[in-house]
């Protein structure tokens, strides 16, 4: 491995990390803005133009807050919880193809941190570990409400991971590869997977909402029943880490939805741009297209949050086990029959 490659990858990883943090930061701003706009208000507009400096002010406030620790025998685990949540939220972005090739300084740079063979499994693995952050934090808080939130989060994640995995399988049967890069390349132009897998997309979307603990599935932290759920006892930047992890997760899952079902960095007319304006222009436009899709899905998360009320717990479990899983199995069967018939 030459050192130039290492430098290139390091820079790329730092950039991806920074962008993820930035997106998570501005998701908090967007959340408040979208919530306000959907309720005929204007939202934060004092700090900077249109409230654009609001996330910085929020972060500063969280840093400056008193760090309260509950009387718990598990001080160490109390610290570890938010750390795990944050770490797992950030390392998922390693396998996501952010764009096609970029030609800089006589080198061809692949805009992906690593293209492993089993990218999707990697994402699933990291997401499934992510629940430990919530569980450990909720348990170590030594508070009944936190524990309830943690237990709910755990069972919800485990139940919806099954349906999510099954909905992905139908897609994988079509693509024949677990690599996100291959899947993106196959969706060249407008050949997006959403046209072939609408039901799979719907299941994946619902499961993504459940996995990121967003409304209507935010039972792990529902204020009206559990005060703050798993982060009831948290304050200061530890609390900020949980919130940040939630928004980073939202960003990553929006990215996954765009990459898996909406063609990732592909956009119609990509070849024309590539031949007429050069590869770099096409790639940069591709990154723009991917981010437009991501932003739409982040907006969609917020849009749904202020539209649909929270599910009751038994409804959540019914939806996961009795509807989504059978539906995704049927989807796999239909996909199999179609592949046999048309290919």
């Amino acid at each position, binding site marked *: 491995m030459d050192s130039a490659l290492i430098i290139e990858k390091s820079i790329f990883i730092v950039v991806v990390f920074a962008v993820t943090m930035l997106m998570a930061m501005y998701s908090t701003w967007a959340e408040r803005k979208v919530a306000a706009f959907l309720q005929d208000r204007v939202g934060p507009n004092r700090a900077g133009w249109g409230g654009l400096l609001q996330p910085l002010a929020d972060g500063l406030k969280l840093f400056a807050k008193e760090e309260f620790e509950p009387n718990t025998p598990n001080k160490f*685990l109390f610290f570890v919880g938010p750390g795990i949540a944050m770490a797992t939220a950030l390392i998922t972005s390693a396998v996501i193809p952010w764009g096609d090739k970029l030609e800089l300084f006589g080198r061809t740079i692949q805009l992906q941190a690593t293209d*492993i*063979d*089993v990218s999707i*499994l*990697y994402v*699933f*693995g*990291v*997401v*499934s*570990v992510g*629940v*430990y952050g919530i*569980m*450990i934090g909720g*348990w170590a808080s030594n508070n009944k409400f936190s*524990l309830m939130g*943690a*237990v709910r989060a*755990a*069972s919800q*994640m*485990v139940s919806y*991971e099954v349906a999510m995995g099954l909905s992905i399988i139908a897609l994988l049967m079509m693509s024949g590869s*677990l690599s996100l890069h291959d899947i993106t390349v196959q969706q060249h132009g407008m050949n997006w997977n959403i046209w072939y897998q609408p039901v799979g997309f719907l299941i994946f979307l619902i499961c993504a909402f459940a996995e990121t603990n967003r409304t209507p599935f935010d039972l792990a932290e529902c204020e009206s029943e559990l005060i703050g759920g798993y982060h009831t006892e948290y304050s200061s930047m530890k609390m900020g880490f949980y919130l940040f992890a939630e928004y980073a997760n939202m960003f990553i899952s929006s990215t996954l939805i765009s990459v898996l079902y909406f063609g990732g960095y592909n956009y119609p007319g990509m070849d024309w741009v590539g031949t007429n304006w050069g590869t770099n222009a096409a790639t940069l436009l591709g990154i723009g297209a991917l981010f437009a899709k991501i932003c739409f899905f982040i907006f969609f998360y917020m849009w749904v949050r202020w539209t649909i009320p929270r599910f009751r717990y038994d409804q959540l479990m019914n939806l996961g086990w009795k509807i989504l899983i059978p539906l995704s199995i049927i989807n796999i069967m239909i996909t199999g029959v179609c592949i046999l018939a048309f290919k």
Partner: protein
Amino acid sequence: MSTVLLIFYILSAVTLATAFLTIYTKNPIHSAIYLVICMVSIMGHYLLFNAQFLALVQLIVYAGAIMVLFLFTLMLMNLNKEDEVHKPRMTRYAAIIVFIVLSAVLVYVFTDTKPIMGEYDYTGEDFQSIKTLGKVLLNEYMVPFEFASILLLAAMLGVVLVSKKEKDAN
């Protein structure tokens, strides 16, 4: 010392230490968390073998699913010091004896082994890729693979049957 060897030593130390702590700690939740770390470090061992698929399946299945369920039940039960099960002294002695005998056997076996010094055959095939793995699993090992799935299905049906509420007899 090569990097791989160094990583191997660190990973092994973590694996052994957490495995030991899993048994040693009194608090059931702590021991479950140690087991999680143990599972994740075993995933690291798989990665050292360049077995990416196996490593990620280890992570998803053991750390991501089974241990989450373990922790889930432990948290639900919320075990305290008071409800610790009383263990008779006999079982302790029996455990110590079994442990000594087992380790004697293992030490005997391992002192007699010799490391393989031969060269690996290079076939040019990428054995860590899931394509190869899938072909092997669904061609040569089709029957055991299907048996495993039938076993899982039977287990699932059994769980459903056991957990289902019985209708009133009359």
